[in-house]
C-alpha cells in the first residue's frame, strides 16, 4: 500500500519519501498473501470496500499491463456442500449484483462439478464469478515501488519511524536515520499501523493479528482452472485453492488468531492437509514444495468487534492512517493509493505532474547462463534484480523468481549469494 500510495502521489507534483523499516519493500502482508484479485461480492453494498474492489478488479488488466506484471482472470467458484449454506450464496449473489460485479451466476452442484472435475462430489450449490483473478502480490507491489521511484519518489529502507510530532506546518517524523519535516503523513505501516498512529494520535481501532497456513504445489501438480472458495458449513470461509498466475497451485487455510509471526503450526498444517484432501480428493500433496504462514491485520473497534470496511483514519488535517486494510487489500491497492493521493492533491493544492509515467518494465532480459535450474532463471536476471535493489537471496527471489521451484533454492542459493557479494552486497 505504501508503494502504491507513493506511486500515485507522484501523479501530482508532490515531493514524496517512502520510509520502510525492513531492508526491502513488500516484506510484510504482501509477501505472504493469497494472490487473489477479488470480484467484490463479499462486501456490503455501499461500503468503500465494495466500491473499490469492483473498480480495482475491473482495472487490474490495465494496471498489470502498465506495471508489466502477469495477471490471470481465471474466475472463481464459491462452493458449498451444505444445503443450508446455499442461502448464503444467494445473498452473496444479490450483494454482488448490487455492487456491480459482472457475470455473477449461481450454479447447480452438477454444473460446478463438471466445470471443476477436481472438486469432491456432492456440491450443493456454487457461485461463479468470472471476474476473479490472480496476480503475484509482491511482483505487483515491487513494480509499484520501482515505478514510484522512477517517477521521482525517494525511498529510505532500514528506516524505522520512532516518533511523530506536530510541527508548525505539518509533522516532524523521527527515524533511526534522520528527522523529516513534511506537510503530510500517510501511515501505511500494515501490521504496525495502529502503533505508528499512536505515536501522535490515539487510533480508534486496534489491530488484532490473524494467521493462516498456506501450501504451494509444484507447477506440474494437477490444479483447478479457477479459484475455488469453500463456503464452510458454519459461518466464515473454508479453505481456498488458487491456481496462481505462475502456474503453481496455492492452498490457503482458515484464518485463526496468531501464535507466532509468519510461522505455521503443526495443527494448522495437519488441518490444512486434511481440508485440502476433503475439498479436492485428487490433489497430490506429495507435490507440495513449500508451506508458509501469513499474517493478516484484523482491525477491531473498542468493543472488540471486527471492522468490516476499510479503515482510513484522518485524526488531523494532513495525517492519514490506513489501519487494518485486510482482504481485499491487494485488489484495492492502487485504488487506495489513488484515493489518498487525491486527498493529498486537494490538501496541498498540488499541480498535476505532467512527466508522470505509469509504465514500468519488469526484469526480462535473459542471458544463457542458467542459475536457477527449476525456474530457468538466468544470471542476467539475477544481476538485474540486484541492480534494482535486492540485497538478500529473498530479495532476488521476489524480483527474478529464482528459488521458487521444486528444489526451493537448495541448488542456486550459493551462486546467488556469490552474485550478491560480487555486485556489492555482503552476505546478510
Amino acid at each position, binding site marked *: 500500500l505504501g508503494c502504491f500510495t507513493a506511486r500515485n502521489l507522484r501523479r501530482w507534483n508532490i515531493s514524496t519519501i517512502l520510509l520502510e523499516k525492513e531492508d526491502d519493500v513488500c516484506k510484510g502482508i504482501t509477501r505472504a498473501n493469497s494472490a487473489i484479485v477479488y470480484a467484490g461480492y463479499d462486501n456490503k453494498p455501499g461500503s468503500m470496500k465494495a466500491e473499490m474492489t469492483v473498480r480495482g478488479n475491473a482495472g487490474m488488466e490495465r494496471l498489470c499491463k502498465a506495471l508489466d506484471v502477469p495477471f490471470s482472470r481465471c474466475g472463481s467458484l464459491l462452493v458449498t456442500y451444505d444445503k443450508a449454506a446455499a442461502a448464503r450464496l444467494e445473498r452473496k449473489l444479490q450483494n454482488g449484483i448490487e455492487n456491480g460485479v459482472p457475470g455473477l451466476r449461481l450454479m447447480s452442484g452438477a454444473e460446478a462439478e463438471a466445470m471443476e472435475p477436481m472438486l469432491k462430489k456432492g456440491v450443493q450449490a456454487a457461485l461463479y464469478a468470472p471476474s476473479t483473478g490472480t496476480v503475484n502480490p509482491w511482483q505487483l507491489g515491487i513494480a509499484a515501488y520501482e515505478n514510484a521511484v522512477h517517477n521521482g519518489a525517494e525511498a529510505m529502507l532500514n528506516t524505522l519511524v520512532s516518533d511523530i510530532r506536530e510541527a508548525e506546518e505539518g509533522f516532524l517524523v523521527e527515524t533511526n536515520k534522520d528527522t523529516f519535516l513534511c506537510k503530510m503523513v500517510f501511515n501505511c505501516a500494515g501490521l504496525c499501523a495502529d502503533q505508528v498512529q499512536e505515536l501522535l494520535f490515539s487510533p480508534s481501532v486496534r489491530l488484532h493479528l490473524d494467521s493462516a497456513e498456506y501450501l504451494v504445489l509444484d507447477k506440474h501438480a494437477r490444479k483447478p482452472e479457477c479459484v475455488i472458495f469453500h463456503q464452510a458449513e458454519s459461518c466464515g470461509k473454508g479453505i481456498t485453492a488458487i491456481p496462481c498466475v505462475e502456474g503453481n497451485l496455492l492452498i490457503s487455510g482458515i484464518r485463526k488468531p496468531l501464535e*507466532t509471526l509468519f510461522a505455521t503450526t503443526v495443527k494448522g*498444517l495437519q488441518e490444512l*492437509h486434511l481440508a485440502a484432501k476433503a475439498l479436492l480428493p485428487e490433489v497430490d500433496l506429495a507435490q507440495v514444495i*513449500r508451506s508458509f*504462514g501469513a499474517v493478516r491485520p484484523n482491525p477491531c473497534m473498542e468493543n472488540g468487534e471486527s471492522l468490516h470496511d476499510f479503515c482510513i483514519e484522518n485524526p488531523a488535517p494532513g495525517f492519514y492512517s490506513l489501519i487494518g486494510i485486510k482482504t481485499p487489500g491487494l485488489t484495492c491497492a492502487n485504488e487506495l493509493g489513488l484515493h489518498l493521493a487525491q486527498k493529498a492533491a486537494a490538501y496541498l493544492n498540488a499541480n498535476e505532474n505532467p512527466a508522470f509515467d505509469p509504465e514500468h518494465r519488469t526484469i526480462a532480459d535473459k542471458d544463457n547462463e542458467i542459475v536457477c535450474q527449476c525456474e530457468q532463471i538466468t544470471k542476467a536476471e539475477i544481476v538485474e534484480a540486484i541492480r534494482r535493489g535486492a540485497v538478500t537471496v529473498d530479495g532476488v527471489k521476489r524480483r527474478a523468481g529464482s528459488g521458487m521451484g521444486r*528444489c526451493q*533454492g537448495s541448488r542456486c542459493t550459493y551462486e546467488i549469494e556469490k552474485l550478491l557479494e560480487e555486485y556489492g552486497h555482503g552476505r546478510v
Partner: protein
Amino acid sequence: MEEFDILIIGGGAAGISAAKGAKGARVLLADRKAALGGVLLQCTHRGFGKNKSGVEYAVDLTDAFPQEISLALNTTVLSVSEDKTALLSGKDFGLREIRFSQLILATGCREIPMGALPIAGTRPKGVYTAGQMQELMNLHSFMPDGPVVILGSGDLGLIMARQLAEVGLSVTMVEKKPQCGGMAKNQRCLTEYPIRLICDDTIGEIHGYPHLTGCTTAKGVRIPCRTLLIAAGLRPERELIFGLGEPDWLHICGNCNMVHPMVEAVVNEGKQAGIAAYKNIRGSL
C-alpha cells in the same frame, strides 16, 4: 539445426557411462556444471569402487572418455520435444537447438527440500538439504554453525553426520523409522563419534527468526540447533520428459530412473542405456 545420433543429458556417473556405451555414434553430452562427474565431485568421502573417494572415482570414470563425443558443459537443457529436438542454453555458446534420434536421460535426482515436508514453524536461515551442505563444505569451504540436527538417517544423512562430527560439531539425527536407514558401513559413524540418533520420531516444528535456534520433534523433544540438514530422501529428476510418454527413443538411466545406493549400479545402467541407444540407431542407419 545440428543433428546428433544421441543426446545425453547429465554428465554424472550415468551419463559418462552412457557415452562410453554408445561409443561410435555421434553423441552430444550436456551438463549444467563446468566439469563432468555430477554429484561425485562433491563426494570427498571414500566408499566408491575400491574404496576411492567420489572425486577419484569420477576422475577414473572420465579417464577413458571417448574423444569423439561432443561435450556441452555449463549447459542447461531447457526443453525436449516429442519431435526429437532439444533446446540448450549454454554459458559459452548461447541458445542452441539440436535434433537427436535417441535421448538418454541421466539427470540424477534432487533432494526433497524442507518446504516439501509438513514441518511447521518459522522459515529461518540455517536450513539446508544434506547434499547442499555437502557441496557447500566440500566445494566452497563453507563451515556451518553447530549444533546440527539432521532429519533422516539414510546414507546421505549418515555421510554428512560423519563429516560434521569429524570437524567437532555436535550432531543429532532424527529418523522416522524405528531404526537407522543407511547401509551398515555408513552406520559405523554412529559408534565412532558421539552422534545422537533419535528413531521413530520426526521433526514437527522449527524455531527462530531470522536464524534457526532449534527444533521440536513430533514427540515433543526440543533440540537446540543452529543448522538443520534435511536428508529426507531423493526424487528422480524427470521434469524434462514430463508429458512425453515412453517413446522408444528415450532411455532413462541412473538415479533419475531409480535411486541406487551404489555407484556401480548407476555405471552399469548408464552403459546399458548407451548400448541400447546405439543399437537403435545402428539398426536404422
